[in-house]
């Protein structure tokens, strides 16, 4: 196990360095006009001084080296466009908690509703009834939520639900930090896709498990269907679900671009896009690094969580846990 984690961490570091360097080099290939807000008015020497000040005149490997050595000191650099000379680590520290709050609330709601929905669907799908109402209704919900683009349904939920609620009580369209009523709709919007995917996977794994021999045995012994599904099937079906949970947790750090921009929530959602549009290279660089690191960490954590949930899985070759 320890060897496995070490090996995975090393390969994750290599990936991280490769990806960061690639992004770094690609960003340096962008036209230099983007670095200045008044490019047309500047003389060549002014441009040169500007580039020199931003450290963009040195050869690319020196810039790259500077970036990584600063990183080791825990310094992500300062933003050079988005908020001029504002430390990036501070910027992230201000914005991340908001995204994290909404993301975690939505994830909690998805788990709370998605897994029971999936269990109900699986029980309905494997039942003897001719018409499997719950399964059909749940599948229709999953299909719609997964196939209609997020951009569309977030938009329509915001406008129509807010209008509907406004018939009874006042509800502003936009988020406001000191009005908890405005938090509800973004959280519901965010959790719709999570509910659908948890329900879908729970249903699929439970249906798969319910045709296995141990289920048959439990049924033959006369265990009640409710007990079979909660005690026998669910424990096996939860294993693959455990694996994706760290990823969806880490996903909440990134925030949701659509929801945050529609409700103007000051989170992480639009930060990368904004940074890219303004060619704030240091910020793009730092964000890509943070997101990639988080995502690598999440995949690793998912594998470890899965091994912890299922004693049959052994991660390192030949070793016992």
């Amino acid at each position: 196990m320890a060897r496995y984690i070490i090996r995975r961490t090393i390969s994750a570091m290599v990936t991280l360095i490769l990806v960061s360097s690639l992004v770094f080099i690609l960003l340096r290939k962008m036209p230099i006009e983007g670095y200045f807000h008044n490019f047309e008015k500047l003389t060549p020497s002014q441009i040169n001084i500007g580039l020199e000040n931003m450290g963009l005149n040195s050869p690319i490997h020196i810039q790259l080296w500077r970036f990584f050595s600063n990183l080791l000191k825990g310094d992500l650099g300062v933003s050079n466009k988005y908020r001029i000379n504002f430390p990036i680590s501070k910027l992230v520290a201000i914005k991340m908690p908001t995204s994290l709050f909404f993301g975690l609330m939505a994830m909690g709601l998805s788990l709370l509703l998605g897994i029971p929905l999936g269990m109900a669907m699986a029980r309905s799908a494997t039942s003897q009834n001719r018409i499997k109402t719950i399964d059909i209704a749940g599948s229709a919900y999953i299909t719609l939520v997964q196939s209609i683009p997020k951009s569309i349904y977030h938009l329509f939920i915001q406008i129509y639900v807010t209008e509907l609620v406004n018939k009874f009580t006042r509800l502003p369209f936009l988020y406001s930090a000191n009005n908890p009523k405005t938090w509800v709709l973004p959280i519901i919007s965010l959790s719709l896709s999570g509910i659908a995917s948890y329900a879908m996977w729970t249903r699929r794994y439970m249906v798969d498990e319910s045709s296995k021999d141990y289920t048959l045995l439990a049924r033959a012994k006369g265990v009640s269907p409710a007990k079979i599904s909660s005690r026998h099937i669910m424990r096996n079906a939860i294993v693959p679900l455990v694996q994706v949970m760290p990823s969806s947790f880490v996903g909440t750090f990134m925030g949701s671009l659509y929801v945050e921009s529609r409700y103007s929530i000051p989170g992480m959602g639009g930060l990368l896009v904004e940074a890219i549009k303004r060619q704030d290279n240091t910020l793009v660089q730092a964000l890509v690094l943070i997101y990639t690191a988080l995502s690598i960490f999440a995949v690793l954590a998912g594998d470890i969580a899965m091994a912890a949930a299922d004693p049959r899985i052994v991660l390192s070759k030949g070793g016992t846990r």
Partner: protein
Amino acid sequence: MAFSNNKIKAIVERLDKPATKGYDIIHRESLFSRAKTSPGLAEQPGYTGYAYWKSTLNIFKRNTVAMFCLVLIISITLFTFMQPFLPGHKDPAKIHNNESGMHYRNQPPSLQFLMGTNSIGQDLWSRTWAGARTSLVIGFAVSTIDTVLGVAMGIIWGFSRKIEWLFTELYNIFDNVPQTILLILASYILKPGILTIILALSLTGWLVTARFIRNQVVIIRNRDYNLASRCLGTPVWRMMLSNLAPYLVSVITLRMAMAVPVAISDEVFVSYIGLGLPQNIPSLGNLIISGIDKLLEPSLRHQIAFPALILSTVTVCFYVVGNAFADASDPRNHIY
């Protein structure tokens, strides 16, 4: 061997009758005759008359929702490509003016402008269909690149042991980077245009397809029946075609069908963040983004509702058809 339906019916009728002594026994015996030995038939396995594509189509046809969606996709696709040739077609980029030279601004739907006009007097009906055309072209192109590249690479990945590590490392790198970031970076670095947007959207999808295919190939290539085929001297192309392909068809079609709606909604995403196609090329993404502000004005909502409806219909239908076809083409579902 073979009984006609009438003959079976006759047997069942006779068996249902209460047995009268003597008479019935003789007749029952005469109903059966010895089958002739035939070397051709002896080669056939238990499921006589089984044909892969026939079974696939049969199962698919039984799914009425999926059939309906398929018809809808075909009609929408045909209509988007036929629409410019219909009589009374208006140029999607043309700005329409009334008699006094003013723009027809934000007109409600009427006979002249079926879906009304936008804020600068362009006809929304033709713009929406032109946009659907662009989006469908992008969707199909991305899906094709995804599938062709993915399947080719996946088969190489699955069969060759020498360069397996290269693919695996490549996959690990791409898999660890959030897709959204890659998409944002790619569409930023490549300047907007239909070709570059296709390139940006198909940057990583093929790798996922390749991995699916690779896993299937690795699982299937050493199965007993493949070993048997190899021992019997079946040529490699035939093994690939009749032993391997049926197992891959479901994966491939699913990926193909799913890539279309994903590409279409990614195009909306890229437009949403302002890195999409320029406004003079109508696409569903562009239309929806320029319609967002109109949502707050109830009388102008049709300007976004119509493109949104087309977009959702297309994505939902592809999703349903893809899943249904994947189920139907999986040979494990053919035993019934």
